[in-house]
């Protein structure tokens, strides 16, 4: 127990050391930090009480922003990025949809469904306000529409079926290529792939965390240069493993 306590205190000491304003000693910083306590209110801690827990992305963003603001004001720790990854504005994502290039959407479930709904409606020319997702029906079609040369959607078979059904409304049926991962029975153990974090590639890669809101309110993240290198590293390893898995497929047959 004593050892645990020592370790605990040692681990906490950097944190405790920061709280010199608590120690009651006037080292010169105390008044400045007391002002900091007053400033905490400017971080809008009240927003924590109004978090929408049905929307993971917004909760993450809310908690992170308050925590970051409080750390910055009281402990003068301001080195954390504005979001946990580089956040992307919805405008940047839309920009990708307008370039007339190929678009790739990967992920499963409602988020991918809502996003493809949006694309299909916008490509089909308007009527975006008819889309409803989680009871939030207000989508506005982007001004000037969107142009993509081809859209690939990789998703679970149930979503794939629904998306395919909706493609009928498009003039060009070949505009979308929909791949259902998980075989005819929608089970990850058939394809041995769990679709992880949902991703969109439109000129550059974006990760998104959907919520019960239109896509423009979702949390959109993008990679920056140094991040890309590391994502590449992971992808390279994953490709290696996938290749050896393909060899095992042969062995099993």
């Amino acid at each position, binding site marked *: 127990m004593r050892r645990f306590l020592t*370790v605990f205190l040692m*681990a906490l000491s*950097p944190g405790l*050391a*920061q709280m010199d304003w608590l120690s009651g000693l006037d*080292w010169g*910083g105390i008044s*400045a*930090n007391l002002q900091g306590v007053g400033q905490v209110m400017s971080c809008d801690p009240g927003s924590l009480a109004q978090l929408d827990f049905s929307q*993971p992305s917004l*909760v*993450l963003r809310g*908690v*992170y922003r308050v*925590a970051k603001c409080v750390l*910055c004001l009281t402990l*003068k*720790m*301001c*080195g*954390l990025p504005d979001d*946990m*990854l580089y956040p992307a504005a919805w405008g940047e994502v839309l920009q990708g949809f307008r370039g007339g290039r190929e678009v790739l959407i990967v992920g499963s479930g409602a988020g991918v469904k809502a996003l493809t709904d949006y694309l299909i409606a916008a490509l089909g020319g308007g009527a975006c306000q008819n889309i409803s997702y989680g009871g939030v029906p207000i989508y506005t079609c982007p001004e000037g529409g969107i142009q993509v040369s081809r859209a*690939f959607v990789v998703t679970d078979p149930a979503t794939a079926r629904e998306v395919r059904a909706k493609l009928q409304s498009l003039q060009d049926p070949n505009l979308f290529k929909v791949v*259902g*991962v998980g*075989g*005819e*029975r929608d089970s990850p*153990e*058939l*394809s*041995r*792939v*769990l*679709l*992880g*974090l949902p991703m969109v590639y439109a000129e550059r*890669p974006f990760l998104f965390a959907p919520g019960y809101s239109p896509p423009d309110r979702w949390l959109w993240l993008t*990679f*920056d*240069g*140094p991040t*890309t290198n*590391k*994502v*590449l*590293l*992971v*992808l390279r*390893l*994953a*490709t290696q*493993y996938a290749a050896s898995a*393909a*060899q*095992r*497929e042969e*062995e*099993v047959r």
Partner: protein
Amino acid sequence: MARGVAVAVPGALALLLFFSGAWGNGPTYEDWTKYLLSAPDYRLEQVLRGKWPYLEVVRKDRLREYQKGPCDPQQDPQGCQGRMPWPQAQAHEFYLPMSSLEATREVARELRKAWQRFEERYYWRVITELNNPAFWFAYCFAGIRGPELNPPTPEARLMVPSEGVDTAFLQAATRPGSLDVGRWASAGLHSLDRYLPVPQVEPREFCDGLGMQILPLMYIPGFKVLLQGHEVFRTPGYPSRPLWFNWDEANARVERAMEKALTEYYLDYQKEVARILLTPRPGTPQEVQNLLPGGDFRNLASPRVYLPVPWQGHLLGGGSVVAPVYTELVPTDPTALWDQIQSLWNTYKGLMDRAGSEVERVYYHVHFYRAARTLFDSRAFYGLPGMEVVKENLVNLVEAPLRSLTQTIPVLRGCAGDLDQLASCAALALRRVDLAVKGVGNLQELLGGSAQVEPIKASRESPGLWKFEEAKRWLPPASLPVYEAFGYASFFQAQNLLEATTVPDIRNVDLSSVNLGNWISWAWNQLSRLVVYWHVPLTIDARVEYCPPCVIAYPSLPLEGPVQPLAIPPYVLPFALERTHWRWVSVPEGYEVPGVRGTPYRPLGDLSALTSLVDLSAFYRVLLGR
């Protein structure tokens, strides 16, 4: 950056095309369900004589070839065209020894612990290498560490895999509303129990090859200058930003550490998983046999034994590691047994009420009654006090509702007599209804107003009445006599799935109970594993002191906080490799075993590189006597 992205996308596309292209439209049901569970007949008396209980599975395609009879291509080249080689057709039966549920839960716990170890090693390698030398001193040299990893034993949650259950049954059962089919027992468990600000593994786990590294210089600290206590200058971004930061070195360190973790430490994870999954415990057949005291069923209890069968192994692209499980060999407490039977009844009734037609709903009383009566008449319970009460309970449970139901359907109205006669009569009536559905007889006359669209006995090879059988996929793990009487068995299965996520898993948020505590702990987990470089800003305080009067300038720790985090890309650790998941599934007798591919007892070549494989066929031959 543009070049990096340009490379990233073909990489991602190649990966996706592998998974989408390799199977065309995806693997089909037939590819995955080649094995039938056959006769869970445990020969309970044999168990008393020291033979370990086992299950039998039959490979469908080989069985069909076998039933066609032998074929020698040298004597009859014409007739043997398109036939499987005879020795292959002969090898259509496989024997799987039973393991205890508790032992498989223990295996699941170790699998979870192996993941936790990897997760800790991954993060602490990256953060220690990045923050060298400060963290090297703290964690590698001084050895500051938290408590050992000690995850609780995971719950055995049943899953009804969608690739196993008949789609027609699933459609029928989900018609009234959505139905819980469970999920992988491992879902959401690839995480630590507590995210502490100190490593929970030994220093040597992540300090290997790491020495104190002072050069290259990582940063020039940010500072502010005070003159007689009044600030006169501060560097831009002080105190959060250092004056200069060696971004190239920081990125190189993170990348180097990630590569090490994702290759070496990940390989260790794979090895550990292979060892945990494929090592039988206890380690020798004699030790296993010693756990079977002969003489009386009541001495059997539930020996903790894990006897895995590699169905080509758990690796991606392979099959699974499988172990059929029992909760106890033979139940000895009639009250507990009755509770269990009641829970089976509730599950069964709930499902058949959803999926069955009116006449099928009558019949599940019969089906259940017959199975439970067989169970209670089992030799395992001879002379067990309290069984009479249990038998009475069964009659009370079934008789009254069955009698009242028979009055509503014309074909059943003539059924009378004691409960056994009633049951036989109802079974015969059901057969007439089935024939009528298939075109022999007048359905309207038999059923009156109610409808029967689907055949009751399906036109497929599997035995029994398919709906009643499929429903058994929802029954939980039980003891040997229960499996025998109800005609099903439960399996523990483990296999690797490829997933792309972050570490800790950003999706691991429990939405089932929405409360602030859940969210705060989730946010803490995420924030406590950010990739940050800690730097120390300085204060330079210049004062005129009485020494005799002279000017002294000295650096001191800043009052705003001695250490400051600087987030380094990728901020959160990515992970996109295979990891081991596990689950418990139930399989009706004569029906397809889900989630297995390839051939039992034939481990993949890659597995021998991961662990020293025990010859399980030889191990089990001693135990099973075959």
